């Protein structure tokens, strides 16, 4: 290894299932400081008798154990750890009863996720669901939130001792906190990981947002004259994208609004694949982090140096490059691909991602052509009357009992056949097949998020207040296996920690185990 690099801070961060990641700084060279996905390993190891601490918040390769942030769909249904044998300690008995109650609440919570009936719960104004409360959060910030990894990431190598490091860099980054009572604190800044940590632990924010790096410390912004020369201004900011499932409500039938389920989640998979490929192959970016937003979407952070220095106009141009879906309920067609050929980016997206997921997953899981109401919606996208009349004729017949093929598949084949065969004389009919597929699958970005340098975005590893789920990273290479309904929730994490503690290790007596209900620590007596 290059001696320069050897001298510099280096952290090997490994997460089971995720590729190994290196983060190192080389400010002396002109080269890019390679920041790759910061995916810390936070794993609760089933405590073995030899371990003195019940769990490790560690950067070392994790032993085979339950890894919290491995949110691939598990091979078996996620189970809570089996209850340990009753120790003779009476305190432990009480603890055990409490944890069993936690168990009972656990699976039920998870089952509700896929169910639309959950919607009324969302609307409750003040009561917090079992999965999330500020005591849990306090503990989470106390034990699990990866402060030093976030600090290392946000420093982009400037936290080293090398003379080329900019010591002010991290301190010029804006953070914002949303506190329990909806109090919103902007322009928070910190000069070290320790400061970041203590402020978050003290304030216990329900949401942490990350903003840009400014020209000066945001806390000192008022000292600089706002004279139109804009001395206080953003200078660096990751290129970010926000994709929200509720923007797809007009093309998904299984859920709407804030709900997501495994039937509509493939839309996010499509978005990740299409955009990730374009960011790497077309734009030449390398350091890309995808994060689950905690409820109904995904965020993307592009951290290359070139990306961080893009102007608002350049960001807008990239967002526009990705935009296909235009319009809303007032306009007619939302996707219009009128030219004789597709741009190579769209063509690649279609053949590599969109067509496959549409035909193999969404067509069936969303029953896109199964009923008259639904197929009329598709027929509305085909302006050619002779085609639509013929299709309608076929489909209005009594439903053919085709045992071997799903009706959606049959009808889709008929539609494709008609439009692509050349039987009807309309111009550009083939294009409508693609327009339909694009309408139902192509990513829909929130343009405003990407366009402005000063836009704030939720930090990874926050906990979503409405679902209790942790905003975990997603590996784009295996994003089709990501299961949003199996993402660890705050109460799941604490449950596991408590389970680990009951095995009888001493640990830090003051910290552990933790009573999630009362927010108090038990003192632990060992017989």
């Amino acid at each position, binding site marked *: 290894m290059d001696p320069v690099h050897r001298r510099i801070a280096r952290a090997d961060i490994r997460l089971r299932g995720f590729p190994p990641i290196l983060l190192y700084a080389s400010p002396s060279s002109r080269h890019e400081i390679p920041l790759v996905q910061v995916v810390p390993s936070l794993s609760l190891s089933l405590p073995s008798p030899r371990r003195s601490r019940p769990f490790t918040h560690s950067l070392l390769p994790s032993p085979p154990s339950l890894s919290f942030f491995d949110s691939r769909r598990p091979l078996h249904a996620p189970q809570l750890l089996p209850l340990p044998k009753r120790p003779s300690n009476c305190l432990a008995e009480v603890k055990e009863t409490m944890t069993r109650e936690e168990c009972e609440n656990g699976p039920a919570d998870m089952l509700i996720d896929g169910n639309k009936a959950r919607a009324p719960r969302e609307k409750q104004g003040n009561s917090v669901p079992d999965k999330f409360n500020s005591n849990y959060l306090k503990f989470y910030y106390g034990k699990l939130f990866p402060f030093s990894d976030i600090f290392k990431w946000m420093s982009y190598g400037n936290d080293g001792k090398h003379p080329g490091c900019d010591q002010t860099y991290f301190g010029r980054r804006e953070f914002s906190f949303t506190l329990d009572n909806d109090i919103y604190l902007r322009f928070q800044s910190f000069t070290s990981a320790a400061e970041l940590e203590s402020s978050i632990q003290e304030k216990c924010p329900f949401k942490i947002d990350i903003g840009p790096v400014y020209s000066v410390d945001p806390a000192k912004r008022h000292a600089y004259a706002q004279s139109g020369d804009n001395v206080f201004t953003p200078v660096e900011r990751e290129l970010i994208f926000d994709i929200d499932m509720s923007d797809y409500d007009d093309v998904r039938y299984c859920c709407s609004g804030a709900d997501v389920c495994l039937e509509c989640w493939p839309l996010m998979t499509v978005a990740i694949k299409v955009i990730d490929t374009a960011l790497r192959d077309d*734009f030449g970016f390398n350091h890309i982090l995808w994060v689950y937003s905690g409820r109904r979407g995904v965020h993307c952070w592009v951290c290359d140096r*070139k990306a961080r220095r893009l102007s608002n106009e350049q960001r807008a*141009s990239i967002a526009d*490059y990705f935009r296909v879906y235009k319009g809303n309920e007032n*306009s*007619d067609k939302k996707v219009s691909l009128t030219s004789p050929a597709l741009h190579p980016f769209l063509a690649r997206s279609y053949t590599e991602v969109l067509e496959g997921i549409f035909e193999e997953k969404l067509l069936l899981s969303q029953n896109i052509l199964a009923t008259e109401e639904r197929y009329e919606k598709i027929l509305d996208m085909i302006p050619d009357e002779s085609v639509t009349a013929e299709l309608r004729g076929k489909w209005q017949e009594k439903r053919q009992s085709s045992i071997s093929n799903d009706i959606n598949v049959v009808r889709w084949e008929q539609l494709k056949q008609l439009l692509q065969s050349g039987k009807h004389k309309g111009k550009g009919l083939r294009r409508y097949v693609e327009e339909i597929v694009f309408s139902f699958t192509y990513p829909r970005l*929130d*343009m405003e998020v990407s366009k402005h340098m000063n836009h704030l975005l939720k930090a990874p590893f926050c906990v979503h207040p409405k679902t209790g789920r942790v905003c975990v990273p997603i590996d784009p290479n295996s994003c089709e296996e990501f299961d949003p309904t199996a993402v660890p929730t705050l109460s799941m994490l604490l449950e596991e920690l408590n389970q680990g503690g009951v095995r009888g290790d001493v640990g830090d007596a003051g910290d552990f185990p933790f009573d999630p209900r009362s927010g108090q620590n038990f003192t632990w007596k060992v017989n």
Partner: protein
Amino acid sequence: MQPLRSHHQNDAIPALPLYRSAPPLEVRLEDFELYAIDRLRVLKAMSDGLSRGKNPEEMEKLVKGLLRANMRHPQASEDVNKDIISHFVLRLVYCRTEDLRKWFLSMETALFRYRFLLLTSNDHRRAVMAEFNLPYKAVSNAEYEGVKDKLGQVARSIGQPPPTANDIFYKVPFEEVPELVANRKVYIHKGYAYVAMNQVVSLVVTQFRSHLSKALILTNRKWTSTIREQEKDRLTPIVEALSTSYLGPDYSQPRESAEISIKDLDQIAKSSFPLCMRHLFEKLREDHHLKHGGRMQLGLFLKGVGLKLDDALAFWRAEFSQKVGAERFEKEYAYGIRHNYGKEGKRTDYTPFSCQKIISSTPGVGDNHGCPFRHFSEENLRAALSRMGVGTRAMEDVMDKVRNRHYQIACTLTFEAVHSSTCDAGINHPNQYFIDSQKILQSKNQSPGGS
């Protein structure tokens, strides 16, 4: 730096200076003002043309005519000097505030673009590129072979003929050509865009704009620090007079007499709001909610109409609390309204959006802002217009304009149909529509006996 000369001296197109540095010329005081006024006439006419929705070919023709009419000097050799001098004088005039800079920058950039397009020979264009020190290398033959399929695909996708081996392409970092990237008019690979010769205009325009933008800031600094004081008896009065006369009102300060109370809103919405604001208003009443774009567009419009901050808060609260509750309104939305009135944050008193800004916005899913003439489907537009009271004959005229993308003219025709009177000025601003409408209605009220 030598400006280029076109080969045809009789041509209306003067050479294409890049205004890199102020010329060491002597100017007579009256020429100082006259040259500037001539150029300003050109810029203003261009601005009008753009807001009337002229397409690029029409604009090129327009610019050619304007230059011929305004920028010539009795001595042909002095054309270039007039060009340069007038530009620099206007820099002084338009450097002084953010709004002025923005307008000047966009007009000068547009003027540069059309003049570049009017350059007929490739040599001239290449010379301009060289002036900008654009370091871009042409794509080698070997590399061309590797990407020609993709280049062909892109060409077909934008309706251009496929490239041949003789065509020159430039490999350019994608950040340098945001327009081409945004419209997917180039093939991009690993961070580089492959730009065709005919797209080179985009490159130079971007460079021109960024140079001018920086220059304007510097000019402003110099103006405020030294020039304004030094020249207070000579140039300063001229400069200050020049800027105010041509931009037109921005409707940020409602007139003294105009004060609207909440109870009037429903009625004036029906009678005097342009379609874009009517739609937002109706949607707000219907859904008790609007997304951010809609809140900005309608909120600032109402401010321009004369709605005071307290009334505005009451109005939005009354609607939003039906959907999200009064508490959430206070927490999440009230701040934004106060921000619009300049009471929060950096305390800018925001100006209501002009038609140009509204037309160029991009409403997405769940949005209701933007210009309905542009963004509505034909069916929805017809329905909305007939609810406004536009008759069948006028409807066809309006739809014809919409099809040709003359959105503001369509709105003007709508105004004329609804109010049964002519609107000569043409609609450039929703608040202008409102004020003109109110004027007509009030004059009708004042003469009840008359027709």
